[in-house]
């Protein structure tokens, strides 16, 4: 079972990112579950959501304690949240940033999702949309296929700029 924890801030679309990732995995022929942790959310507060992907039906409902991958949609949450908490030895980190931070023992991937969203003018209520471009980065990492990522996005959003942004992230991501 492959387990992903997504860090973001309330209102940034972390829950939708989890849903898109699970949907893309389903299109790949896998089983997947996505669940946000529902606490006392409010816009701007650090939040987490979880995705599990497996070849077999998933029976686990409790929270992910040892993720294989941590996705950070907003690097500023790292000032208050230990995003590496519980990350498996050798586990990977994907971060929305033009700079690559160094995390000892972990392979880090970075891509400027915010820049991509702004370039495509994917902005809602003043916030850049990060949850569709991040699928492109996840496809580049091999978590889901590129085609399934696009299919998942098209299934939820009719605006083709979302797919363009995911494609841009696929091409621009740095390992």
């Amino acid at each position, binding site marked *: 079972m492959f387990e992903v924890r997504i860090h973001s801030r309330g209102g940034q679309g972390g829950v939708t990112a*989890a*849903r898109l990732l*699970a*949907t893309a995995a*389903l299109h790949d022929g896998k*089983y*997947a*579950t*996505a*669940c*946000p942790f*529902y606490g006392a959310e409010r816009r701007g507060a650090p939040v987490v959501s979880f995705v599990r992907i497996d070849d077999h039906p*998933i*029976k*686990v*409902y*409790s*929270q992910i*304690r040892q993720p294989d991958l941590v996705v950070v949609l907003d690097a500023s949450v790292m000032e208050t949240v230990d995003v590496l908490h519980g990350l498996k030895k050798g586990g990977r980190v994907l971060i929305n940033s033009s700079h690559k931070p160094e995390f000892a023992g972990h392979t880090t991937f970075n891509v400027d999702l915010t820049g991509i969203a702004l370039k495509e003018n994917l902005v809602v209520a003043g916030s850049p949309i990060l949850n569709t471009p991040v699928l492109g980065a996840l496809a580049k990492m091999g978590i889901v296929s590129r085609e399934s990522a696009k299919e998942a996005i098209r*299934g939820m959003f009719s605006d083709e700029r979302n797919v363009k942004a995911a494609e841009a992230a696929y091409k621009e991501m740095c390992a």
Partner: protein
Amino acid sequence: MKKIATGNKAIAEAVKQALPGVVAAYPITPQTEIVETIADFVTSGQMKSRYIPVESEHSAMAACIGASITGTRTFTATSDHGLLYMHEMTNWAAGARLPIVMANVNRSLGPGWNIWAEHTDAMQERDTGWLQVYVSTVQEAYDTTLMAFRIAEHNDVLLPVMVNLDGFSLSHIMQPLDTVEPGDFIPPLHLPHAIDTKNPTGYGGLTGPDQHFRFRWDIERSIRDSVNVIEETELDFAARFGRRYGPVEEYRCEDADVVLLAMGTLGKEAEVAIDILRKEGIKAGSLRLRWFRPFPKLDLAGKEVVVIDRDYSFGYGGIVANEILAKNKCDVYNVIAGLGGQEVTYDDMAGFVRERRIGEESWFGVNSHV
């Protein structure tokens, strides 16, 4: 068609396909997404039902009662405080023999204020005459809601059915959902005592001491008959759509010396605990109790049973454990766990079995030693 959906959305999809004449509801966390989605279906014309927004859950159930007695299919959804606010009317719905289907998203009762999963809300409706089923996956929530209409409306039953799902851990989780074309799986409703304006009849009249018990017994007779109706409905569902559940879901129980029993999402995650215990050489199996009313006959004689109760009857004990003890000659270790959404993992559950103290009761996180 396969897609990713939440437990709440799955229920709304099933209700859309069952096409009730009337939906009357009041929103409450974590159920709101069900009635919100149904309201969207009605507004957008995808569902030709009458949606009655009301000012409270008491009125929601009263409106469902009024609708159902006209002989139309009726649905509502609620959760915890909303369910308890309906309590007078839930008794009425069963007593008036109205096949209303309700989704109840199990949530803890305040105070302290808590919006997460617990079964005590539905347990407080235990003696109303409603059939109760507890589901554990998004797919099962969908399938069971479709089945609930057929069971409730069957001529041998004519009682309301409550489909229970864990707040957040199931209502808000996103899992694969395979929707079906129900076709004639749910036959048209023919309520024998529906209001007929051409043939006026009195309803809800005084029943004296020489009659009242007969109506009570009639509810009990029907709920006993519902066992066969549930089985027949599940068999037909399996034949048409390929998925079967049963009154309980057994997992590796054949040669088990110790059985881990739970309901809802904990009952599903328990299967992972069983795989861990089996690897350690412990002959354990799990039983997920699905139908709670009618309470299924279980084959537990001579076994050790670890019962997880996500509920409690103060001054007595875990409700499920004590119901099992009352009807089965088995030895029970009762763990009270998961109240108010308390995190309980498969590792924790494996620990309950390894460290079981038969004949005792423990509260996880308080005085259990795992």
